[in-house]
């Protein structure tokens, strides 16, 4: 039997959609189109002299070895953040899902970091890991470890990766916990009776059942690492030392806002947009096949 349409009003659905569409157009489509338009122009900052340069901004960017380095850094950073944030969140959610005393308190505390703004989170990490004012930074130096993320690129990247992951764990935790709680207890109990070990139960029952959530989180985490980690990097390292922590989004910012190279910066943001669209498409095409809904 087909469902009957309840509202016959032809205008109402559009009216209800209008606010969302307006917001998407104003804050997404319009700036995106502007970026595409500007990416083929060579302009002085004030917009007094504009030249049309075809795809020169793109070729300049793509043939710049420093930009390629930044692409590598970004992918390394994104995969590390996604891996760390998702695996630790899953572990924590798995633990918090058990029948333990004070589980409610644990859950609440684990969600807290989500309420911290990226810049504030970065300042907290700064106070912990700064080589001369941070507690752990001083401790590391006292232990004879040459800890100086201001000059050691590897350490700087490690620090922003950890800080960015920490920030995202709560969000992942929340979703994993909900997913775990929705698994029917009877299935797990049946497996126990059949003699499946906890590890086996996890990999054969729990993991497949939470795969839609994991897939969703994979997407969200990658987009987060690409775009939302700006605040953490800006506050902790500013892209340095050298270019060790300069991700693509940070380069868009520094080239466009600080160095006023509007054409180059726009070209980069178009490329970034294409990368993320591509990644998302690949994920839906190949990863989603393995997901059981």
């Amino acid at each position, binding site marked *: 039997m087909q469902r009957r349409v309840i509202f016959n009003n032809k205008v109402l659905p559009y009216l209800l959609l209008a606010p969302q569409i307006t917001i998407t157009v104003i804050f997404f489509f319009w700036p995106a189109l502007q970026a595409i338009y500007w990416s083929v122009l*060579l*302009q*002085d*900052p*004030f*917009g*007094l*002299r504009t*030249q049309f340069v075809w795809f020169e901004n793109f070729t300049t960017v793509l043939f710049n070895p420093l930009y390629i380095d930044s692409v590598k850094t970004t992918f390394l950073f994104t995969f590390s953040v996604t891996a760390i944030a998702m695996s630790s969140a899953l572990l924590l959610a798995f633990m918090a899902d058990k029948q333990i005393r004070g589980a409610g308190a644990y859950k609440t505390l684990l969600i807290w970091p989500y309420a911290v703004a990226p810049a504030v989170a970065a300042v907290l990490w700064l106070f912990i890991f700064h080589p*001369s*004012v941070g507690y752990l930074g001083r401790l590391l130096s006292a232990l004879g470890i040459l800890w100086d993320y*201001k*000059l*050691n*690129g590897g350490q700087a990247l490690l620090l922003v990766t950890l800080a960015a992951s920490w920030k995202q764990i709560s969000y992942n935790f929340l979703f994993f916990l909900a997913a775990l709680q929705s698994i029917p207890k009877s299935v797990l109990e049946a497996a126990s009776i059949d003699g499946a070990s906890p590890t086996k139960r996890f990999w054969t029952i729990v993991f497949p059942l939470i795969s839609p959530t994991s897939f969703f989180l994979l997407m969200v985490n990658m987009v987060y690492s690409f775009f939302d980690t700006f605040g953490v990097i800006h506050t902790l390292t*500013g892209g*340095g*030392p*050298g*270019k060790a922590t300069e991700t693509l989004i940070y380069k868009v910012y*520094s*080239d466009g*806002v*600080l*160095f*006023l*190279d509007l054409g180059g910066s726009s070209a980069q943001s178009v490329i970034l947009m294409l990368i993320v669209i591509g990644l998302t498409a690949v994920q839906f095409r190949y990863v989603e096949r393995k997901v059981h809904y």
Partner: protein
Amino acid sequence: MVKMSKGILVVLVATVMFLLTGATPAPAQKIEIQFWHGLTQPLGGMLEKIAEDFNASQGKYRINPTFKGAYPDTMVAAIAAFRAGNAPHIVQMFEVGTATMMAAREAIKPLYEIMQESGVPFDTRAYIPAVRGYFSLPDGRMMSMPFNTSTAITFYNKDAFRKAGLDPEKPPQTWQEVRAAARKIRAANAANIGFTCAWPTWTQFEQFSAIHDIPLASKSNGLEGMDAVLMINSPLHVRHVQTLIDMQKEGSFKYGGRDNQGDALFPSGEAVIIQASSGLRARIIKEAKFEWGATMLPYYDDVKGAPKNSIIGGASFWTMTAPKRTAEEYKGVVEFFRFISQPEVMAKWHMDTGYLPITFGGFERAQTLGYYKQNPGADIPYKQMIRSEMTKNSMGLRLGNMPEIRNVMHEELEKALQGQQSAQQAMDSAVSRGNVILRNFERANRP
């Protein structure tokens, strides 16, 4: 009936109009001047106080100061406002934005031009040469109004000097002496860090070049044209980077981070010798729990002609154009500029903030007030600025996209200090990358 009420309405309206216009005489409309600045507290408050004093001093104009974020944010805000057709009348711009502003000829109203048009007498010779040069065309016409200006000097910790067996009244004057002192400090374990610096590119390359009378870039560091090329891979520059690398290896130098990040190391007592902005003085007074002193920037004494005067940093005020902006409004800007360049205002700003007295009159005024007697060392920046005749290499800098060039210099220096490349490679790479930036700027801004 309808006619009747219409009549009443007319009377009512007339009465209201009369009450509004006739009965209460409207106060003379003041001309509003928008002024965007990039100074955080407490400096921003002090600047706004000056604007308030100006407003109180006359009845015709009203300066409306607005804080727009740090210098780069203020710059971006002003550019966006210009594109939208409502640029502020005055914007405070950091010194490295000078080339960008000068190239945007249609967006700005040069200082000499508004001075001429308003007929207000304006003597550029009141300004100390290194300040004047930085903001003038090669023929000497001033483009913007210098205001908060600093230079880099050396601060040192006298207590730690004593601990290390150094004479606290004889601070190191040459790089050789700085290195020896820093070594001694580390050997005696008087502090964790012997020598560090804030604003690494400004103190180690820009000031360094001026003091040793070598070019940072061709064309008088870009003052004479947009087609300048960087020249920081000279033997002396490379030698200096090598010195820093060697000092880092032996533990007498520690890199303090980009921009002003290194500042914190001195007042906390962690570093004994620091090269930083003269504006750090206020913070040291507030935070340092030890006896300290100030001295001029060091030089290599085997370099002929060194030391020359240092160059400035800080910001100047630019007048911006907008559609429908009237001559009367520019007149207001001129009046404000005249107000702030009075010796009394200048001297007070200098003494309150630690910025340089940029006019001879301002310095003399502070001297008459006994400021330098009560604050020994407060005249070091001023004296360093005028310690020699200016040369082509010590007038200032005017390089397009200077913030980006500074970023490149930071990156290459950091890589050299990390041991990823030699001093020569670092400076060669900085030159080639910096020249690309300069050519791009030239191309985008060619009239």
